[in-house]
């Protein structure tokens, strides 16, 4: 029996704004009158480490998504998408920002950063759909590269059982007023990117 309406795993690197994305989803879900659960990474792992966040819409149970259970894997960084690929359900969708943040193991020459295709092709084998997008370029077009996470949220919105107006209202709550317009624009650009790909 299904125990959650939509399970999302959001991954990235400390400082990319993973928590903001889940906060917006959670607030929108509460506005929609749905039960919602989330689990966050705090503390030591935040210092430049991998960050993983679980968000479960329409769920009253565990705050964590089970291995193989994610309907959507939202990756703000490409290598992190592959690191947490085991969360993806075979029917799931992976939305991947294609711009890397190199870990220190790579910048100091102790490890190799895989090419984008090396990351995307195994992802394609294990889930229903992989959607790569250059969210930083889109965020810059929207007015600020900082809104990369909101571009990704916009892309994610196409796969969530939440009304867009609720998401935008929640977004307005969490971003400073002077960045509201840029963030709303970033959201729309991410959403449009998904629509253009899924239509072709």
């Amino acid at each position, binding site marked *: 029996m299904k125990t959650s309406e939509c399970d999302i795993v959001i991954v990235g690197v400390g400082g990319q704004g993973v928590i903001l994305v889940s906060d917006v989803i959670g607030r929108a879900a509460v506005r929609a009158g749905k039960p919602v659960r989330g689990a966050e990474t705090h*503390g030591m792992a935040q210092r430049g*480490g991998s960050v993983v966040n679980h968000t479960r819409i329409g769920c009253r149970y565990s705050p964590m998504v089970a291995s193989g259970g994610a309907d959507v894997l939202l990756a703000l960084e490409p290598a992190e998408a592959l690191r947490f690929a085991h969360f993806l359900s075979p029917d799931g969708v992976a939305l991947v920002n294609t711009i890397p943040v190199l*870990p220190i193991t790579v910048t100091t020459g102790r490890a190799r950063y895989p090419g984008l295709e090396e990351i995307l092709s195994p992802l394609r084998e294990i889930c229903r759909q992989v959607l790569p997008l250059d969210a930083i370029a889109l965020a810059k077009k929207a007015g600020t590269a900082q809104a990369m996470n909101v571009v990704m949220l916009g892309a994610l919105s196409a796969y969530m059982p939440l009304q867009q107006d609720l998401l935008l209202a929640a977004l307005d709550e969490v971003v400073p007023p002077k960045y509201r317009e840029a963030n709303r624009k970033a959201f729309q650009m991410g959403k449009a990117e998904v629509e253009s790909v899924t239509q072709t």
Partner: protein
Amino acid sequence: MSKYLLGNVAIAKGLLEAGIGLAAGYPGTPSSEIIEALVDLKGDLPLHVEWSVNEKVALEVAIGASWTGARAVATMKHVGLNVAADPFMTLAYLGVGAGLVVISADDPQCHSSQNEQDSRRFAEFASIPCLDPSDPEEAREMAVFAFELSEKFNIPVMLRPTTRVSHARANVSAGVALEAAGQRKFVKNPARRVALPVHARPLHNELVAKQAAIEDELQNAPWNRLDLRGSAGIIASGIAGLYAEEAIRDLDLDVSLLRIGTYPVPSGMIEEMLSHVSRVLVVEELEPVVEEKVERIARKVNPGVEILGKGEYIPRAGELDFLAVRNALARMMGLHEKTARRVAAEGIVPPRPPALCPGCSHRSTYYAMRRVFGKNAVYPSDIGCYTMAIGMGTVDTCLCMGASISVASGIRFGGESEDICCSLGDSTFLHGGMTGLLNAAYNQARITVTILDNSTTAMTGHQPNPGTGVKATGEQTAQVSLEALAKALGAGLVEVTDPGNLEASLQAFRRAKEFAGLSVVIARATCVIKARRSGSQRSRYAVGEDCQGCRICVDFGCPAIEFENESARINQLCTGCGVCAQICPAAAIREVKR
């Protein structure tokens, strides 16, 4: 109207709904946001909120407030309770004035901790009740209830969230914050407030005697839920109860379920469950606290019942999750287990360990320390961001808050003849290092103590401490001088150096190394994250064409320094500390004017 709130914020709301008059804590993941949320949410309420110097002090401050008639809370992480153990154990005898709640946030899986001890054992040890929430809403409700229980039975109460509750988010209902009620006056009552042996003996008897009444009271608490169905059952505690409910629903089984949220456990419900089922799976994280009780009760009511739990079904170490509980249930029922998904290609992903920030002063300090003391010296270290410098060869031990200095002394007195240079942060020094320094001075340990003073408690989220001159509320206060403190505690030589100045740091460490006694080096530079947030901006650095490709700067380990095409390169993460330019033997790294 409910809100999507972090578990720790939900707890803070509960505390405000209970009308607390005082909250004291020491930062520690996963507990830190409770005090921070209280500061954010308290508004005009007459509520004293403080970051205390350590957990023992926090609990003692809370005890004083409780004895003066104010509902009080002390917050800490599980290992902080070890520090507070002394007042904690005896407080159970003496009892409270207004309600007193100890929040000890556990960290199964050691997400951000040096161990994963189970605070439920500590509550049992002290004979005090413990509330074990499964989600943020329960944590909020329990925070309110804990004070009622505390006052009804004249006993401190523990609230024990885990990381997956404190750092979970969920729908949390809105309650109303209350202004602290009651008269504030310390009432003298030596028989209950002075733990002389003559008082302690009857108070211990009283503590033992009230246990049954507390259990009776908790039996009816809404967080103990019994649902009798089939002849197989699950007894699950805290968040494991949530996983068990999900597992039963996922497998669509007609299984009996007892969810437990309080300690002492509801023996009556356990008896009912054991009389009803032939097999029972006990699901709890870490210690078999519930399981031991279930075994004891089974001997009385149904010796034939099969009890499954720790070992073959449920691990004793690490955190549980839905899949682990689902599979334990499936195994009990003879059903197919689900294996966790494996993706072979994950193997090509480069590791991304947490690391010291670009421009972090700890890196520069450790670099200078290592240059002066060399590879044969012994480097006891401590709890804080700087433990992440383990790769620099200057972190040989990490035990508990402040232990670096006393462990260093013991290594010296144990017979080590090499140089010993220990290190700890400013907040850690003030928390638990001062007594170690005093002891080292008193017993004449020839060691060097390095205080990595970044003027904040960085790892847990940049809380202020007595060295910063700022209180939990953001208000200014007296700023303690670490150098004056070190001298007063008996250090023979105290050096203060700027980690951004490599030559000065090398010289300070050289003098400390040569000093025939107890030396202290205070390496002082504001945490780079704190500096950035306060708007400070420095020029960046760049590598010139004259780079020889020697990799010395790369091995320094700053995330802002990369290596490609046989040359170093400085990326956009550079914060402008300039230490790499001082290290470069070819003088190829230069400041870039803004």
